[in-house]
């Protein structure tokens, strides 16, 4: 049976990353040619699929080992809290929201600066599409593998990732423009909370800690992170408003 929860989370995590890859492919295609862009993107997808199978499959057989749980858990925790931190900073106004249209424009400028377009497969276009898709996809593969392993539902996680790939490629080819209206920060926040919760749980399991209310651990870890993030965002917004109003002096060290 499918684990819909794992499939959904993998889908969302992979979707967000492939939207960014699509922006690169579209920009490269518009300037350096679609043959080069699509060839680079497709090559990256094949490499990523191979990576998922080569890394994910053997790990399924050894996930019961304590040290494997610790390593996977730590990776999930560090990756997840990184996404969580960035999304908090963006919601709080401390970091600019990611703008796909702006990224598309910048990439097109970068491609135009690359010089004359070669006939056939353009080297610059192919390499940019390949490396961009591969790097964004690497994060998607990470999410799929770690979620699949931690929930003992690798097939569901892989299906979620594949589903996201199909949707992004299909809609991208149809629209032929970047996905500007995706609530990317909200999606990264949700996936960040889930990854951090799962990673924390697995690190704790490898240390043989005693989580209070054992079966509810993941739930209260996720809830705590979500609520605390909301508190941090509102705290930052309030401090920034006061600073703008000039009604508060900032000390040289530390925050009151």
């Amino acid at each position, binding site marked *: 049976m499918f684990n819909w929860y794992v499939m959904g989370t993998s889908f969302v995590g992979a979707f967000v990353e492939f939207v960014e890859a699509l922006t690169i492919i579209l920009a490269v295609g518009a300037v350096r040619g679609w043959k080069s862009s699509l060839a680079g993107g497709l090559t990256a997808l094949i490499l990523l699929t191979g990576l998922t199978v080569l890394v994910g499959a053997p790990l399924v057989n050894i996930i019961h080992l304590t040290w494997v749980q610790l390593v996977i858990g730590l990776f999930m925790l560090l990756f997840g809290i990184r996404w969580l931190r960035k999304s908090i900073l963006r919601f709080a106004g401390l970091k600019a929201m990611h703008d796909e249209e702006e990224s598309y424009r910048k990439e097109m400028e970068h491609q135009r600066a690359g010089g004359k377009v070669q006939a056939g497969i353009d080297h610059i276009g192919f390499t940019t599409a390949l490396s961009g898709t591969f790097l964004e996809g690497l994060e998607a593969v990470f999410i799929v593998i770690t979620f699949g392993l931690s929930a003992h539902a690798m097939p569901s996680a892989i299906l979620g990732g594949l589903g996201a790939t199909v949707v992004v490629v299909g809609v991208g080819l149809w629209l032929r423009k970047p996905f500007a209206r995706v609530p990317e920060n909200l999606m990264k926040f949700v996936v960040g909370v889930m990854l951090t919760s799962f990673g924390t749980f697995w690190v704790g399991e490898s240390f*043989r800690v005693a989580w209070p209310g054992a079966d509810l651990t993941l739930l209260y870890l996720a809830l705590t992170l979500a609520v605390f993030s909301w508190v941090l965002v509102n705290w930052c917004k309030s401090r920034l408003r006061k600073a703008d109003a000039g009604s508060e002096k900032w000390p040289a060290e530390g925050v009151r």
Partner: protein
Amino acid sequence: MRWAKIALGLLVDDARLVGVLILFLLLSFLLHVMQKPLWAALAIWIGLLAALTVSVAHELRLKAKK
């Protein structure tokens, strides 16, 4: 070397965040060795919140100085 940098970039983009987290994880491990599993769990949990607070507060200070 380049691939090691890329791999590290997937996991670390703020040394404060990771530093505080690792500190609390080490504390948790120490508490586990001392056979205090509940305190070990609490150390990890508090570590998450502390790491986020330290990191976000730092960014807030930097923004305020600009």
